[in-house]
């Protein structure tokens, strides 16, 4: 199995398209940080704290590296999933399109092992992508804006002391990685249904965007559907920044996300194990 995983790693990480996400964030994040540094910071401050400044004089480095690191985490909803689907969507569909299944699946190695190896590599890529983005955004932000306490606006204002922040961000990115695992798993499943890798990318993003819309709008019908949508549990990574940390809720979110991931993976296994390879 390890050899299969290694082969899949080689196949995936030798392709240049695997690095699209890294390049994209590697360019965009510094640009945004530079923009914030050059003047966006002040307008950010006014926008964010206008009400508070009526009654308080704010001391300290509010818009610091941790704050912007937290701000960049909002990319986890849409931007990071896009780049994840580029690789996840190609894992199975790409082989079908290229016709390489005709060699890959005509060996004594079972389909389920090959799919499992591909899935593991998809998750590895996902984790690397999320952690790279986190490291880049936090690192650049801290370098550009310095440290300080983290100010979060949620049911008023919550300030988390700087000493606690490395732990919070570590756990948050762990949970974010899990959430992104679900995205990749869904895309991986879509990839098994087709020989065209564009389809899974579009389908996955459509599911995410529509789900986000549903969970955001206060309509009764939508709110009734909301518990069944996996994006509803994505904010586990945000809950880490609450006080007190709702560990029970986070545990529940984790269990649900793991459940979704397992379901998508199993669906892929079941479907692909019986799929006729015609390409």
């Amino acid at each position, binding site marked *: 199995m390890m050899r299969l995983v290694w082969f899949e790693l080689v196949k995936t990480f030798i392709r240049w398209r695997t690095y699209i996400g890294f390049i994209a964030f590697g360019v965009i994040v510094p640009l945004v940080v530079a923009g914030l540094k050059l003047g966006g910071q002040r307008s950010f401050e006014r926008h964010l704290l206008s*009400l*508070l400044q*009526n009654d308080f004089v*704010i001391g300290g480095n509010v818009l610091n590296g941790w704050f912007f690191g937290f701000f960049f985490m909002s990319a986890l909803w849409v931007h990071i999933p896009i780049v994840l689907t580029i690789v996840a969507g190609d894992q199975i569909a790409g082989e079908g399109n290229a016709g390489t299944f005709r060699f890959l699946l005509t060996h004594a190695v079972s389909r389920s092992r090959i799919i499992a190896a591909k899935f593991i590599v998809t998750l590895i890529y996902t984790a690397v992508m999320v952690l790279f983005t986190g490291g880049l955004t936090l690192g650049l932000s801290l370098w550009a804006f310095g440290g300080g306490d983290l100010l979060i606006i949620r*049911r*008023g204002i919550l300030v988390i002391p700087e000493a606690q922040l490395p732990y919070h961000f570590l756990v948050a990115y762990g949970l974010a990685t899990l959430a992104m695992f679900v995205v990749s798993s869904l895309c991986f499943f879509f990839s098994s249904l087709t020989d065209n890798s564009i389809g899974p990318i579009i389908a996955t993003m459509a599911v995410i965007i529509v789900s986000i819309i549903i969970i955001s709008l206060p309509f009764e019908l939508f709110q009734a559907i909301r518990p069944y949508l996996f994006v509803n549990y994505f*904010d586990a990574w945000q809950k880490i920044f609450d006080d007190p940390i709702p560990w029970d809720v986070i545990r529940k979110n984790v269990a649900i996300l793991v459940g979704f991931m397992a379901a998508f993976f199993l669906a892929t296994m079941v479907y692909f194990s019986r799929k006729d390879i015609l390409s």
Partner: protein
Amino acid sequence: MNALIKQRLLPVALFLLLFPTTVSSQEGPDAKSRPDPRRVFTDLANPYRNLKDYTVRIQTKVNMPTIRIPDFTATLYFKKPDRFQIETKSFAPLPRNSGLFNPFQFDPEKNRIAYQRTESLNGVQADLYRVEPLDSKIMVRYFTIWTGESPARILQVESLSFRGTKGIVKLSYRNVEQGSEMWLLPDKVHVHLTFPEGAPNADAWSLTTKDNPVSGGMRQLDEVSGEGDLDLAYSDWQVNTGLDDRLFEKKK
């Protein structure tokens, strides 16, 4: 008989002589004993005439449901007439107009001051004044100030901001010796803030649910409501150290 009358009448006469004075001092000031607000506040600022700048360490405890902040420490710099700079690693919101000690804040030249009454404040006789800032940049409609004790000092300040936030500030002082000089400076300050109800930020209109996870953490602060307390403890006063103007330049 005459001696008896004298014996009995004398206390009465004495009482009658003193009574008007006694009564008049309790019932209300007449034009002669009503304090002059201008003079009172000028006298309040007088001991600080030679104060050009100060540096003080403030330790703050915040107890507010809507503003959950850990205890923080900040260094406050002040330079006459009204420049402040806060230096801190933490997020440090200090109550505007009450957490920043400015002995010249209630200068009669900059405020309209009217005497209200005299009353007991925590067992101390205190004169009540209504102070309306003339500078429109100060976001307070008016202050209600209690002064008293000896030497005279501001004991309590109540404020009402334009936004509707009410603040009650209770001050205690101590003598701070600096070289040959002695300064009466704040030791502890207790601030109670009451934010107005139902005052959403007009810019924060949103179609989405309140617990919308997508924007969680990044929402604009759309309302600060409820009430809470801040306790500020001042220490390490350093007065007239010659603070540089550059210290007060706004960081970009």
